[in-house]
């Protein structure tokens, strides 16, 4: 019942937390207000600042070894709203702070605005990109379940229209289906929130955690919130909306949607089960989540093998890679818990970078060849080696081959699952890696052989290097030092979980 007062009292430097949300939110408002070309300038101009805030937050968390806390409006929870940054939040903020500018720089070619006019697609893209950034910051930092609901809605409203920018019927239908799934998720999430408030009279995560007991209202709330978040994360069998929505969006938007947006709702699943519901026995729910994850890995990979278009293949591989994220849940208690958690987080980050790199590369392929049919990729790697290098390096992470962040993630998860005796998950993950190798082979083997095709236009060197840089980050994550994994544990009530 007693709550450590440090959990709701503001810490020094905490005022950075609202800034991480308000700066991109201000960018949204100003971009829409002033419009025209200035939307792009505002977005690009604010991104260094947003990244600097993320770095500062990470440094403060690192130095203090404690989560940063900020109470808004001077009202402490439960009446007011608190923001909190732990190691996991800081790492996700940094990830978003790197991928969003990369996508933005890449998108400058596609969404340039001629002087003195305003065009539809650029204005929408630059405004919503910042909206996604604001929403993700809120999702990573929010300490109040209803505040997080607002963050989820921000994320939905910013993400959905990006998929239908070209206005073709199939993209509009994809966006509509995405919206309906997301709204279903929001309603379920909100229902769970209502039940938790009814049971305990607070929605603050730190205050809620010590109150939660295994009782019907909490179990139902947990089920509803989880189901809602899974619909937004596109975990099998709620993944139907993802491939068309992600594959038909402009490449820069796909990179952000597939790399970052689905991680937002995944992040909240972790928050829910690790921070809010740590008191619940987690074996059965964890097993269910990992079971769905396993199905996602196998099903998504097999479908990826059968796709005819490169972007759809990459989108289905997202369905599969999301499955890996949920492997951490049944392994979250026991001496291997830290490994499992680190593996899950590492998977989230490395997939974000790798998938962003792959979608950007696929966008370059489609622009250069005029199509993205896999059957027509013969020799393409000879014509644009850097693009395919980025695609391949990203693929390394998906397969889980060393050296890559994906390798570290999958290795940690496998280690934890074998150590805990739950070897089934290890088998599924290994099979998923083989299948990933299969679908990447389908793309890379023909591209590396045969005559180099005539390009409509060669990809710009600068845009290729953006994709390559992202792929290299996914690679470099393999060399994360042990202190990085210690950093991820900051703010975890991990000791408590491990002892359950």
């Amino acid at each position, binding site marked *: 019942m007693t709550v450590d007062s440090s959990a709701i009292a503001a810490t020094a430097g905490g005022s950075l937390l609202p800034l991480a949300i308000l700066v991109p939110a201000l960018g949204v408002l100003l971009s829409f207000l002033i419009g025209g070309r200035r939307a792009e300038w505002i977005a690009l101009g604010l991104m260094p600042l947003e990244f600097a805030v993320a770095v500062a937050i990470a440094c403060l968390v690192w130095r203090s070894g404690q989560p940063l806390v900020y109470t808004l409006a001077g009202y402490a929870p439960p009446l007011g709203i608190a923001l909190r940054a732990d190691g996991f939040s800081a790492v996700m903020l940094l990830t978003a702070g790197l991928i969003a500018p990369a996508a933005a720089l890449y998108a400058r070619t596609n969404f340039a605005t001629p002087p003195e006019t305003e065009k539809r697609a650029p204005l929408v893209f630059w405004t919503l990109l910042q909206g996604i950034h604001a929403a993700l910051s809120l999702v990573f930092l929010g300490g109040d379940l209803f505040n997080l609901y607002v963050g989820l809605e921000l994320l939905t409203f910013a993400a959905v229209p990006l998929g239908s920018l070209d206005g073709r019927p199939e993209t509009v239908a994809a966006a509509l289906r995405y919206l309906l799934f997301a709204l279903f998720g929001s309603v379920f999430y909100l229902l769970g929130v209502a039940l938790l408030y009814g049971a305990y009279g607070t929605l603050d995560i730190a205050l809620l955690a010590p109150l939660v007991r295994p009782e019907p209202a909490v179990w139902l709330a947990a089920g509803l919130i989880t189901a809602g978040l899974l619909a937004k994360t596109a975990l099998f069998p709620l993944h139907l909306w993802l491939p068309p929505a992600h594959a*038909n969006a402009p490449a820069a938007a796909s990179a952000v949607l597939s790399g970052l947006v689905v991680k937002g709702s995944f992040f909240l699943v972790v928050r829910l089960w690790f921070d809010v519901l740590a008191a619940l026995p987690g074996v059965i729910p964890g097993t269910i989540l990992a079971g769905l994850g396993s199905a996602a890995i196998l099903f998504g990979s097999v479908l990826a093998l059968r796709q005819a278009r490169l972007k759809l293949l990459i989108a289905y591989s997202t369905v599969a890679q999301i499955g890996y994220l949920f492997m951490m849940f049944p392994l979250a208690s026991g001496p291997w818990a830290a490994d499992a958690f680190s593996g899950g987080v590492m998977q989230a980050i490395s997939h974000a970078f790798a998938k962003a790199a792959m979608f950007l590369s696929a966008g370059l392929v489609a622009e250069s060849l005029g199509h993205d049919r896999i059957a027509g990729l013969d020799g393409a790697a000879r014509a644009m080696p850097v693009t395919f290098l980025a695609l391949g390096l990203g693929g390394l992470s998906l397969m889980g081959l060393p050296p890559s962040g994906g390798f570290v993630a999958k290795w940690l998860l496998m280690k934890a699952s074998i150590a805990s005796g739950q070897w089934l998950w290890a088998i599924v993950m290994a099979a998923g890696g083989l299948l990933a190798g299969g679908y990447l082979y389908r793309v890379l083997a023909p591209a590396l052989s045969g005559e180099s095709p005539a390009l409509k236009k060669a990809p710009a060197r600068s845009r290729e290097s953006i994709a390559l840089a992202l792929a290299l980050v996914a690679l470099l994550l393999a060399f994360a030092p042990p202190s990085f994994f210690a950093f991820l544990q900051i703010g975890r009530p991990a000791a408590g979980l491990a002892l359950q």
Partner: protein
Amino acid sequence: MTSATLAGLVGAALVGLGLYGLIANPQPLRKILAFNLMGSGVFLVFGIVARKGAGAGLQADPVPQAMVITGIVVAFAASALAVALVLRLFEAAGRATLNPDGWTEPPGDGAGAE
């Protein structure tokens, strides 16, 4: 407290009804209606939580009430976006259906999406 409990039961029934409509009804507009119905069921659950938190001279806890007000506005915005998408789909495909077979104009390259 009967009225609060009764409202809660209605809320539960509305969530069930709305969920059914959202999944089983193929027309997008009907799905939007079902979403709104489900949403209002959730708001009613908030409502009984508020009513059961009456105290301090208030007949209902103001915090869940404020959340419902926020939620109603967000639900409206969501409906507006969804309706705009449905109408756009109707214009672009000649039909307001998520099923590509029903579109009158032949869809382009990405038809194999689903």
